[in-house]
């Protein structure tokens, strides 16, 4: 486990806000020299604390008006392997995330669509035809907030 000090946490918050900032820009914000900032940023990346970057896009402006979370239960466990289901579901372009969970459902999928009728098409043609799929519960996303997490 990686231990962070206060400066590391502040750097992390800055990079979560905007990962394209250079080491010297971050150094200026936090009162660090460019090499000191670079060393710390590099350590955060090398140790895997920062596992990657992600673009945040305005879905509506790009024509994707609907996001639906699907809880999927597999009907024929054992007959269809989890790997087959996971491979098939991950290949669907409209499926943004696939999470394996324990509880009411086996998988949670995040699905984007242009509108409700486009979502219906994805659900019928792509999701319901997946190998082993059973009960499906849909919840339409109304709002979403990502919090900074325990680094403040």
């Amino acid at each position, binding site marked *: *486990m*990686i231990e*962070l000090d206060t400066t590391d946490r502040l750097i*992390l918050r800055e*990079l*979560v*806000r*905007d*990962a*394209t900032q250079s080491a010297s820009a971050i150094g200026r914000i936090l009162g660090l020299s460019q090499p000191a900032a670079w060393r710390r940023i590099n350590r955060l990346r090398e*140790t*895997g*604390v*920062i*596992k*990657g*970057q*992600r*673009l*945040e*896009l*305005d*879905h509506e*402006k*790009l024509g*994707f008006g609907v996001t639906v*979370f699907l809880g999927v239960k597999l009907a024929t466990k054992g007959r269809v392997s989890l790997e087959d289901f*996971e491979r098939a*579901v*991950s290949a669907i*372009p*409209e499926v*943004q*995330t*696939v*999470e*394996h*969970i*324990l*509880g*009411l*459902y086996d*998988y*949670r999928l*995040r699905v*984007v669509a242009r509108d409700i009728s486009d979502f219906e098409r994805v659900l019928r043609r792509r999701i319901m035809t997946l190998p082993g799929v059973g009960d499906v*519960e*849909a*919840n*339409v996303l*109304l*709002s*979403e*907030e*990502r*919090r900074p*997490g*325990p*680094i*403040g």
Partner: protein
Amino acid sequence: MFDDTDRRILRQYQHAPTLGPAELAERSGVAPATCTRRLERMQEEGILRANRAVIDWRALGYEVEVSLRITLDKTQPRAFDEFMAAARNVPEVLEIQTFLGRVDLRLSIIARDMGHYQQLYRSAILTLPHIADIEALMHVARIKSDEVLPL
């Protein structure tokens, strides 16, 4: 206006958000100056909101991730607002989502281990206002998480 050039750039950029401007331009098959100009315009128009670092909470010692599906007591007119304001004060809450469907809200929370989760659940979650029902789903694995839009 969002055209095919913008689409090409975003498609590449979504799959490789760590690319610098020169490389992104090359992969998208556009001139570097065009690429820079298009990215700036998409930022101004609010299409491209941010390029964020993604934290691996496991590397920081948070081994447990739980999804809490919550139904609120809707007889309270301010149930949503008050619940969300209180949930924002719990540092271990990573996501707050509201839904139209069987569930009203979902919180994604992280904890160091099951003991820590138990303690958080009792002291910080069950004390949130207006909860009518709550269901916990334990996170096992993330199979796909790039969150790429099919442009």
